[in-house]
């Protein structure tokens, strides 16, 4: 078997004195969409940010494309082909849409996505190109956050709750976009609170509790066994959508 695109083993991450991730380990293969689920505060966001070195794990190893990246500075990790779509979009509010895209494009790797293609794929962003990031709607900001990662042509996308705070229609749109990115060969690691959304786009689901993976399975397994979501997420599937 070939080496996974991303692998974490024995990862321990702290915020100050708080021990957030406990010997966390999992693999991600090229072309997979993997969703991480879990209650609030179990370390989902910290998992994504540990991969980016924000902050770096105190112990354990993270490998990307066969090389150790844990301990490297964030900009170095990103330059190796990791694209970050952070929680809450984190669009630069004082920069225009064009400036947000161009700033990301200045650090892009060779690939098929260019600013022009971005505007073709996101006509809404083209219409709003001179608007400041801070004046965009939530849905537009999320589109821009994804476009900003996309224009860098990463091999791995880290998406932190892309459906958060968006209307069902926009969530559908984002889901279709993620499926399209995956069909083009991109690998996506997704953190979600929205169970139905995560099940609809992921190949594999990891459930976290107290900073570790407590369940791993296929979306169908979870749909077929309400006990899993009840036990690990504290919800019945009926309440999931």
């Amino acid at each position, binding site marked *: 078997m070939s080496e996974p695109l991303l692998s974490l083993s024995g990862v321990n991450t702290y915020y100050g004195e708080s021990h957030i991730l406990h010997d966390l380990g999992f693999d991600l293969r090229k072309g997979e969409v993997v969703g991480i689920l879990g209650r609030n505060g179990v370390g989902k966001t910290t998992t994504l940010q540990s991969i980016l070195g924000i902050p770096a794990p105190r112990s354990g190893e993270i490998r990307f494309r066969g090389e150790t990246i844990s301990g490297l*500075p964030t*900009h170095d990790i990103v330059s190796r082909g990791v694209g*970050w779509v952070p929680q809450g979009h984190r669009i630069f509010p004082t*920069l225009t849409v064009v400036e947000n895209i161009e700033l990301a494009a*200045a650090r892009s790797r060779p690939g098929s996505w260019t600013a022009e293609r971005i505007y073709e794929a996101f006509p809404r962003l083209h219409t709003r190109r001179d608007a400041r990031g801070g004046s965009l709607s939530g849905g537009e900001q999320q589109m821009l956050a994804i476009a*900003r990662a996309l224009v860098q042509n990463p091999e791995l996308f880290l998406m932190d709750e892309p459906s958060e705070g968006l209307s069902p229609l926009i969530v559908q749109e984002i889901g279709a976009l993620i499926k399209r990115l995956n069909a083009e060969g991109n690998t996506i690691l997704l953190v979600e609170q929205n169970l139905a959304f995560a099940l609809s786009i992921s190949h594999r689901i990891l459930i976290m509790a107290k900073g570790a993976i407590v369940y791993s399975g296929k979306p169908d397994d979870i749909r077929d066994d309400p006990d899993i979501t009840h036990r690990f997420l504290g919800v019945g599937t009926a309440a999931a959508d």
Partner: protein
Amino acid sequence: MLDFLIAQTLNGLVYSMLLFLLALGLSLTFGMLRVINLAHGAFYLMGAYFGLTAWNLTHSFWAAIIVATVGAAIVGMLLERSWLQRFYVRNELDQVILTFGFALVFADIMKMLWGKDIHSIPVPPLLSGAVHIAGTYFPAYRLILVGVGVALFVATWLAIERTRTGALIRASVADRVMVSGLGFNIRLLFTYVFGFGTAIAGLAGVLGAPITGIYPGLDFEVLITTLIVVVVGGLGNISGAFWAALLIGLAETYGKALYPAAASFIIFGLMAAVLLIRAWGRDEEDVE
């Protein structure tokens, strides 16, 4: 009386421009690095001394300008790399104590190297004449200083608002973690911005030398006034720094000429008034 007023206004404008150059670096550094550099005044005096030594060796004002600016930039970047960078994760008090400590250390080193005497750099012959405008003679050098200040303000404003590097700086002011999450080496960027700030302070020092002179203690004099300018203008706000420099520079100059005893009270009073007004404005925003 009119002559007196015109002369004092020009003096005030010159002083304002020196304050603006100082405030520009301090404000930009704070906006991006979130560190108040209390050693900023030391870079003004350092620039003046670097310029003095260069002038003594070459008798060229241009050489003095280059040596002062480049020298202050190098010392600034070394300070950022070797010390400040380790303090970004610490609290504000630690950072302030560190930069204040360096202000004292630099002051002592400069005293050891250049002594306690008052020095000056003569105005270059080309600029030492006077310009005749509206019945009054203006020293050409002072007029040029005002022009340099305004030009640097416009250039910096355009660079920040209209260029790609400017967009990077604005992005870093808003969210520096996200900037590194896009693949930019934010630490290197911090070093350059800090170096730019100290370079402009050094430039102000050498340009101001023919007017203010060069002497121990000048570093802290300009530091305090610059802090007032930055507070009045709004931390991290370049346009604000420009208008605040004009306000404080003119107020202090008129004050010194008309009521010498109350001069320093005037600028502190202005700062207090601006802070009060801004606090009221903020309350109203909260209500909405």
